[in-house]
């Protein structure tokens, strides 16, 4: 992916929007849509309507939180429990938005545009924007991200509906595979981005301490693991930089 690190220019912001939309079409979109097929099937198996699934993808668009919500709802959990579980599952969006923002910031866009773009922050578009936006002229970055992630968002709406429609016609094993697609896909997206030592260490530490922490505190394990492993990874690599 070294060629993507060289400077690029779409010419104008609208062209960057179209360019982002075009470049979102590919394997990541295919795999993400596969994951949302699994979500659509899960919605149906939980006894909910297709509109519930579509409304969830439209308003939330953060798959692990959507899955947690459907699961907890189907076992009859109270609203407050569901809301806090979803919030703690999606806490990653805060540091993701904080690091994306300076990467896509340009002089020409109004502030509300960034709050609108924040709604489509998700792993695929974030990872692409963090890699590609620094190579673009600053006024094209927000447009590229919006085109890329917006297209993914719309396509996952379609996938949710199709997954719902297919749920009864495919064997349970297919649904199983589609639900497993999401964690495997996330894992590989990050396995391919190991250029910076501090972030690689954060990934390794987070995945190692996450599961034991979950046994200790199912609710808070993600937030604690993120802060602890992230800070430790940062501290260990920052000290090394000073030494060398």
């Amino acid at each position, binding site marked *: 992916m070294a060629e993507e690190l060289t400077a690029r220019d779409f010419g104008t912001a609208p062209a960057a929007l179209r360019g982002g939309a075009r470049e979102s079409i590919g394997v990541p979109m295919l795999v993400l849509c596969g994951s949302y097929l699994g979500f659509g099937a899960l919605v149906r198996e939980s006894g909910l309507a297709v509109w519930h699934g579509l409304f969830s993808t439209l308003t939330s668009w953060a798959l692990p939180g959507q899955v947690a919500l459907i699961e907890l709802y189907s076992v009859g959990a109270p609203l407050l429990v569901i809301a806090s579980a979803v919030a703690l599952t999606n806490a990653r969006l805060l540091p*993701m*938005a904080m690091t994306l*923002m300076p990467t896509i910031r340009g002089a020409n866009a109004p502030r509300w545009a960034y709050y609108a773009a924040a709604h489509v922050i998700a792993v695929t578009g974030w990872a692409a924007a963090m890699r590609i936006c620094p190579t673009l002229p600053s006024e094209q970055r927000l447009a590229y991200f919006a085109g890329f992630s917006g297209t993914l968002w719309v396509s996952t709406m379609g996938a949710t509906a199709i997954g719902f429609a297919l749920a009864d016609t495919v064997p349970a094993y297919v649904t199983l595979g589609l639900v497993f697609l999401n964690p495997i896909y996330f894992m590989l997206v990050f396995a391919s981005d190991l250029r910076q030592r501090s972030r690689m260490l*954060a990934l390794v*530490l987070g995945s190692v301490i996450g599961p034991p922490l979950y046994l200790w505190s199912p609710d808070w394990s993600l937030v604690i693991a993120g802060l602890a492993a992230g*800070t430790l990874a940062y501290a260990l690599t920052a000290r090394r930089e000073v030494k060398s």
Partner: protein
Amino acid sequence: MSDYWWPFVVILTGAAATYVWRALGIALSGRVSTDSRVFEWIACVAYALLAALIARMIVFPIGPLAETYLADRLGAAVGALAIFFLTRNNLLAGVSVGTAALVALTWSRTIF
């Protein structure tokens, strides 16, 4: 409230609990520049949070995956990583092998 409308309330509540993080991230990002140390620390926290989430989805899954064996899920995940690196970061090959491996392993439990 009816069984039809109540889920919309639940989903909207979940959506609000999700969007709060997004908006807060934008609001707090004002004085962070990409080459600062704070940026690098926050990026590390984001990566660690994501890694912990992925590990949880594989080790302690909810939903249909909870009925599969941990050894099968770990085996499939390791297989996906191995194929991914062997094929020089081919995402499609990695996820295909990973999911197919879990389905095959789970299915094989029913015949042995």
